[in-house]
């Protein structure tokens, strides 16, 4: 079973996402939550970094955190799945463990 990595910091403010992606193994799951959701948006300075990561890991973003910040699914990079809290729980249950990048 694989690992669920959660990232809750903006990529512009901390290097949590970058470090997470450096360590996340092939087949890992990465869930962007809270201020981490900004990495899921199209057109940012980090878009290419995230797109490249999609070749080896699955990336998810928490919908309620997107909506709170004024963004909807159409602003999200293709290949990233939007999940709700129930989806977060499923991911946590399906993976062997959860590793949080703060």
């Amino acid at each position, binding site marked *: 079973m694989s690992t669920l990595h959660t990232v809750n910091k903006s990529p512009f*403010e901390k290097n949590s996402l970058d470090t997470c992606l450096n360590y996340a193994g092939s087949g890992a799951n990465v869930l962007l939550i809270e201020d981490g959701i900004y990495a899921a948006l199209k057109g*940012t300075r980090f878009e290419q970094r995230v797109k490249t990561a999609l070749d080896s890991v699955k990336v998810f973003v928490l919908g309620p955190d997107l909506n709170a*910040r*004024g963004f909807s699914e159409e602003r999200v990079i293709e290949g990233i799945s939007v999940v709700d809290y129930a989806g977060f729980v499923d991911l946590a249950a399906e993976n062997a463990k959860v590793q949080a990048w703060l």
Partner: protein
Amino acid sequence: MSETIKNFLYLNRRAPYGTIYAWEALEVVLIGAAFDQDVSLAFVDDGVYQLTKGHDTAGIGMKNFSPTFAALGDYEVKKIFIEQESLEERGLTLDDLQHLVWEDEDEDYAEKDSIKLVSRAEMASIMDASDVVFSF
């Protein structure tokens, strides 16, 4: 009694909701507005995310404080500077942000834009020209 009016600059560099900085800054601005000072707001780095339109916080169980920005004009806060470079590296344009206005009493309460888009160099001058900078 004569009072000195100072130029206060509130510098916002944090995204909303993930931390309390954005909300606290807004609270301080509203309190400060009661003291008849010359107030400006600056939004740089992740601070520009505070002003995006359409916040819906129902799903995260937090207060949506973004409508409060629209009230700033009523508190005589009418100088809101947004840094162009910060928008660009986030793939945002002014269209993604709230349209904030203030009413000019001297011109029959005509609505005027509060937001001014500035370059990083211009923002540096704005900071330089301020008497006091409050950082959030």
